[in-house]
């Protein structure tokens, strides 16, 4: 949702190789904040009301996971209280959380670390 992508810079060495270059030219590469912002996690939390079969179906639909993988995550939620379903860019993670809330699952977006 935060569309402002502040620029950040990382050095890239030009003509890398022999150590005879006295004054190497440094080029600046621009990367978006989003690139540096990795990763965010989509976490689903346990809820005693939602049916296990329903949660499995939602994981299959939202993430396109095969049934076995969806069931594994569902059981992780059930036994451990939470499961990390996906990690990656913030914008996509927000979209997943929105979809999960649309299915009435308890889901949050968390920054790794």
């Amino acid at each position, binding site marked *: 949702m935060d569309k402002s992508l502040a620029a950040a810079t990382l050095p890239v060495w030009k003509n890398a190789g022999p150590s005879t270059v006295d004054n190497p030219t440094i080029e600046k590469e621009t990367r978006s904040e989003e690139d540096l912002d990795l990763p965010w996690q989509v976490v689903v939390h346990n809820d*005693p*009301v939602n049916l296990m079969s329903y949660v499995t179906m939602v994981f299959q639909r939202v993430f396109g996971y095969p049934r076995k993988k969806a069931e594994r995550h569902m059981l992780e939620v059930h036994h451990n209280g939470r499961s990390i379903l996906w990690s990656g860019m913030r914008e996509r993670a927000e979209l997943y*959380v929105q979809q999960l*809330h649309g299915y*009435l699952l*308890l889901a949050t977006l968390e*920054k790794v670390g």
Partner: protein
Amino acid sequence: MEICRRNDEIEISELDPFLAELLRQVPASANPEGVPAAEQRLFSPPTNGKETEICAEWKLYVEPELRRLFRTATETVAADLEQLNGNEKPFADLILRIPSIHADAWLSALNQARLVIAAKYNFTNGELGEHFRSPIGSRRDLSLFQVNFYGFLQEFILRELGAWEKGLGD
């Protein structure tokens, strides 16, 4: 009560007046208004509280969309439930037919209702596991039965939805 799939519909037949009334209650039960715990559950925050900016934007942009989504589902269910009205014999068993294209709306509305009721009565995990508890007794017992009955319907719809999606129609 009997429940089965006929072509592109789920048919709930031999519905006695008590169960028919519980079904009629789905849209009203799904409404979290006036129950802060239910409102909080249906519109839970998207982060664990640390990202206040995300939460603020969520309230502004996403929550209204979720409200619209949930309302659309309950309206679809309410329209289907019209079939249960207007019966000349008030105590006759009834039939409800749910078109397959409404299955998702039913899953959502039943889930909303279960979550709202559970939040309203603050049911424990133990209570929610007591599937065979008698509905006769307190209002709380009846509400627990309602949660379990809606859960049973959800399970059936999910099973049939899986079959439809696999193209295993009769």
